[in-house]
């Protein structure tokens, strides 16, 4: 990939850009407002909508800063430094640990109390698995791959078959190119539907059954297409977590730990079939989670429920259908916004098709997807995450106290509602600035002139501002409920 010709920015322009960045950053920072925080109620010095305006100013200033100060591609091909090797024994131990944890929580789901808050399974699935692992992945890299239970079983089975000669002459099927990451899109959509729409989402025994079904599907996929290929294309959760790990400064590969610049793992993402859909689903489902707690959605739901009720569904199923419509509409809206940003790039040339551009810039959505996850679920992890102390001591909810922490309670005062709001706003702004940076860097690599690269990103900037405003509107609506 030939980089765009570097050009030194004029001093006056650079100075103006720096001043703009500094001014807008000062405007966006909360200042002394954090001292006003009250537990359980947000005490903000300015109206919430003003944060959306400030965020838009930060994004525009970042865009100007990038245009002036970032003249050559820096993230398209980063150097990774090997920091330490990992013994094979450690790999085996972590795999065994993953299988043991999976077996324990599934057993708890079947054998424990069916009260969702007293059984460890719902908390592990919705707090630690769905939200905690993405947070860990961004900090420590793809840690889930080390403890992925179905991958560990698949690898162990492959090793046994190789040793016994059972696999002699048997080659995995070639993975269909058209399938791409579509199994992941379907898997994440189904899980999000269960979490956000399904009325029995907290039922421990149903969750345990679904976990076993998912593991079985993964083993079938690995047996058909090979452990490695399926785990990188078809394992919904494995691919989902690995996507977040791409923006981490740590990279685990070839039994070693490497370091790289933050965001450096995102540009090499191969935009195989389904990748754009996957990122849109990742953002869309989280957006729907926020929307479903707001007044706008809750004012529409009764009408949708009536509509589906008139079609013959009972109240519960009509509500689920309304939620299904909401998830699909939100994912389509995110896809449409991204498409608009991509279409705007044609203003500086039409050599690349919309499809090619769509794939070339899809990695810019990864930090945005993470920002949405962090913003929408931070309070869940901050508060509900503490429940693990009691649940680990009494995983079945039968009154046992294995670790002596069964009576631990949740401390709701360690961070105020105001503090959570600032974390949410900060996550959204930083995530979108990171997205802009990745888009600018890719544009520099694709377009001959740096100026054209900047012009090509006008509409992507508009999309980023739209995503940020949407995110803040959803969070604000949820906070007012």
């Amino acid at each position: 990939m030939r980089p765009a010709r570097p050009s030194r920015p004029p001093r006056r322009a650079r100075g103006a850009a720096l001043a703009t960045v500094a001014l807008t950053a000062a405007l966006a920072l909360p200042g002394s407002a954090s001292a006003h925080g009250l537990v359980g109620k947000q005490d903000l010095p300015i109206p919430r909508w003003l944060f959306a305006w400030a965020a838009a100013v930060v994004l525009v200033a970042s865009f100007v800063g990038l245009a002036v100060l970032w003249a050559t591609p820096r993230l398209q091909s980063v150097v990774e430094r090997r920091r330490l090797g990992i013994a094979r024994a450690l790999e085996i131990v972590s795999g065994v640990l993953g299988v043991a944890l999976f077996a324990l929580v599934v057993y708890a789901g079947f054998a424990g109390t069916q009260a969702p808050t007293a059984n460890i399974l719902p908390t592990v699935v919705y707090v630690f698995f769905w939200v905690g692992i993405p947070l860990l992945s961004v900090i420590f890299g793809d840690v889930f791959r080390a403890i992925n239970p179905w991958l560990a079983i698949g690898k162990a089975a492959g090793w046994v078959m190789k040793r016994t000669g059972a696999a002699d002459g048997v080659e995995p099927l070639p993975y269909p190119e058209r399938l791409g990451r579509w199994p992941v899109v379907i898997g994440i959509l189904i899980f999000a539907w269960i979490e956000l729409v399904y009325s029995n989402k907290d039922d421990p025994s149903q969750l345990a059954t679904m976990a076993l079904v998912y593991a079985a599907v993964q083993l079938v996929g690995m047996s058909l297409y090979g452990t490695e290929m399926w785990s990188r294309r078809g394992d919904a959760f494995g691919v989902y977590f690995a996507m977040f790990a791409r923006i981490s400064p740590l990279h685990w590969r070839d039994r070693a730990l490497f370091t790289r610049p933050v965001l450096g793992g995102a540009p090499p993402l191969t935009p195989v079939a389904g990748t754009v859909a996957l990122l849109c689903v990742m953002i869309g489902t989280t957006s729907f989670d926020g929307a479903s707690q707001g007044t706008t959605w809750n004012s529409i739901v009764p009408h949708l429920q009536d509509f589906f009720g008139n079609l013959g569904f009972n109240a519960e199923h009509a509500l689920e259908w309304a939620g299904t419509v909401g998830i699909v509409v939100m994912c389509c809206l995110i896809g449409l916004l991204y498409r608009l940003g991509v279409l705007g790039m044609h203003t500086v040339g039409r050599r690349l098709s919309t499809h090619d551009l769509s794939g070339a810039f899809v990695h810019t959505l990864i930090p945005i997807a993470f920002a949405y996850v962090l913003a929408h679920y931070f309070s869940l992890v901050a508060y509900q995450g503490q429940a693990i102390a009691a649940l680990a001591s009494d995983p079945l909810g039968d009154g046992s106290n294995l670790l002596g922490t069964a009576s631990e309670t949740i401390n709701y005062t360690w961070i105020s509602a105001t503090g959570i709001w600032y974390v949410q706003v900060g996550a959204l702004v930083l995530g979108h600035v990171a997205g802009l940076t990745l888009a600018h860097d890719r544009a520099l690599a694709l377009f001959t002139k740096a100026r054209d690269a900047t012009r090509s990103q006008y509409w992507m900037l508009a999309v980023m501002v739209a995503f940020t405003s949407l995110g803040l509107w959803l969070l604000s609506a949820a906070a007012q409920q």
Partner: protein
Amino acid sequence: MTAGLILAHAGHWLAGLLYLAPVVIVVGALGYQSFKDRRRGDDDAEVDHTPDPHVG
């Protein structure tokens, strides 16, 4: 049903407009800038090539 639904919840939609305003302003400014760029007649940029088929 749709028109009634929109009118009945106008308060919610109108409050949301405050969040939409920055988007409209940015889109307007960028549209104007694009128009100016095009009038300058320098939209002859060429795309070099497709992205690398990266590993991953």
